[in-house]
């Protein structure tokens, strides 16, 4: 079995997470923002699985299943909101929906 050092996996997870965060912050299209969030979630999932393998504990994998289901739920709600947003503003630009200011 190919052994990958743990910190390599962590670096991968961190890079993935950073990419996701950057996507969330810089993309204006709300679909891409949702995708960025998915990437961030999966980065966390990778870190969990790697840690579970490293310490031979099932907890990390269980946690990944939670992340998976949570992500599915989030996407369904998120896409529903996207539909409503598009219905309301006729655009997918997140910055257009800035009507509610403090």
């Amino acid at each position, binding site marked *: 079995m190919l052994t990958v050092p743990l910190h390599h996996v962590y670096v991968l997870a961190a890079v993935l997470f950073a990419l996701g965060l950057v996507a969330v912050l810089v993309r204006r299209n709300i679909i891409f923002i949702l995708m960025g969030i998915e990437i961030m979630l999966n980065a966390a999932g990778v870190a969990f699985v790697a840690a579970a393998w490293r310490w031979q504990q099932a907890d990390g994998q269980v946690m990944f299943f939670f992340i998976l289901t949570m992500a599915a739920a989030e996407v369904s709600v998120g896409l529903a909101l996207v539909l409503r947003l598009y219905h309301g503003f006729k655009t997918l630009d997140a910055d257009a929906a800035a009507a509610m*200011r403090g």
Partner: protein
Amino acid sequence: MLQGLWLVPALPLAGFLALVIGARLSRRVAAVIGVGSVGAAMVAALAIAARFMAAPPPGHAFTQVLWQWLKVSDFEPRVALYLDPLAVVMMAVVTGVGFLIHLYSARFMGRDEGHNRFFAYMNLFVASMLILVLADNLLLLYLGWEGVGLCSYLLIGFWYKDAASARAAIKAFVVTRVGDAAMAIGLLLLFMSLGTLEIQPLMVKAADRWPAGCGMAMAAAALLLGGAVGKSAQLPLQTWLPDAMAGPTPVSALIHAATMVTAGVYLVARTHVIFELAPPVQRLVAIIGAATLLLAGASALAQCDIKRVLAYSTISQVGYMFLALGVGAWGAGIFHFMTHAFFKSLLFLGAGVVILAMEEEHDMLKMGGLRKAMPLVFWTFLIGACSLAALPLATAGFYSKDLILAEAWASPKGGPWLWAAGAAGAFITSIYTFRMVFLTFFGPMKKAPGVRPGVVMGLPLVVLAAFSIVAGFVQMPEGMGDVQLFAGFVKPVLPAAPIEPGAGGPELALGLAAAAASLLGILAAWWLFLARPALLESAVRSPVGAALHKLWFEGWGFDRLYDVLLVRPLVWLARVNRADFIDGFYRAIGAAGDGLHLVLRLTQTGHVRWYAAGVAFGAIVAIAVLVLL
């Protein structure tokens, strides 16, 4: 029989509750409840008083414990009634005079829009007053004390749509509050140092533990005196009573003449043991009484409003009671309270009829010649006036005032000066009383009377007139009849003034002098106001006379003095400190929160990506703190 004592205060209280709950009762039903409850209380009180006199309970006292009020470690006041000869006298007078005045009010207030409210307040007043005089401990007494104060406020301001009435009510409440605050501190002091508020054990403990003239006794007596002075409108807190005449006339008769203003006299008599332990304070009581009776009497000379004459006269007569208390003539003070309750409420009720007949005219100078038009009122009013002026031998006022004067001379705590003040007061009393009679009932008729008193208003006048004469015959001096029924009755509670046996020498001469003062006063009034009115006119027009008249008319300028010394600085302070400086601190906290809110609001842009950036930044900071620290 005595077990029914609780009914006496409970009946008017029940009447009050019925009138409050049934606010929409018809006038007739409300009047029946209002008058009937006090009437039933009177019947109960008189039956109990008769029983008490026929067969005095052991120790001349009867205690009825109703329930435990509250219990906080060793502070366990009970709601208990205490009946002794002093309480019997007070209870009988309060319910008796109270009933007659209620009966009179049924007609007097018959057309008033606040008729039912009036009877509710009056019933509450009678209940409170009865609690005050029957209380077994000082806490319950204080409850009644504040209750009568509240009712006094409500009834002075009864016609609250009239700004002057409302202002008079507030004035009365605030001025008596000064005294009440002193009294409350006095009660706390008594409890702190003697550990109880029940009157009888308190008196025993005080006599046991405090030597005569010790600081504690002096402080307690002075503070109680403060309360008494406020309630009884004595110097220096007398200014509220003349203004209190803004209330309906039956209120003035019941509260501001017969009962409530004598609560201070009752309080001092009730706690007389403490006053005996503090001779300088007791001396002060006598001096306050003497000064008040003279100053108020002089003020009464200059008033035009018939009710204000009676108000100043009340202050002056309560001054006599204080004089009696101050020289240790406790029984004489209470005796004068009793006779005064009869003749002064009679005079007020008579004045009320006159005012009603004159269509709300209070000014005596615009009245006159009512003698023929209103004979019943004239004769009863005359009897009341004679009693007030202490017409010798025939009237109740003579016997009570004579007793006070005799004891003021003979008591070791009295002296010629106090006697002289009292005798001069008697002279002034006669003048202003008969000035009132002559201006109102004699001379040319200036305005024909409208309404005549019916039976309902006439009956109380007749009954009170009868009492204004016969009430004096229960106590006559040794030289004349020597009847000692009253003194004998109250003796178990109120010891007689300690007079040395040999001091009775000039008593007859003193009595004659006092009688002469009274008669001379009547004569002077006749001469000044009927025979030679022009003489007085010119005297008043001279510069000195005018100044004196103005001074007396304004009640020696006390109102102005207090206005300058207290009211205006306080109002000024309130105006300066309108933006309360303590509030400033809390307002600054509010302003800081508001400013922070303005800053934080800038972050709420509505751009969801900025929020995400904020979350990311916050997470980085949190993790950095966790890792690095």
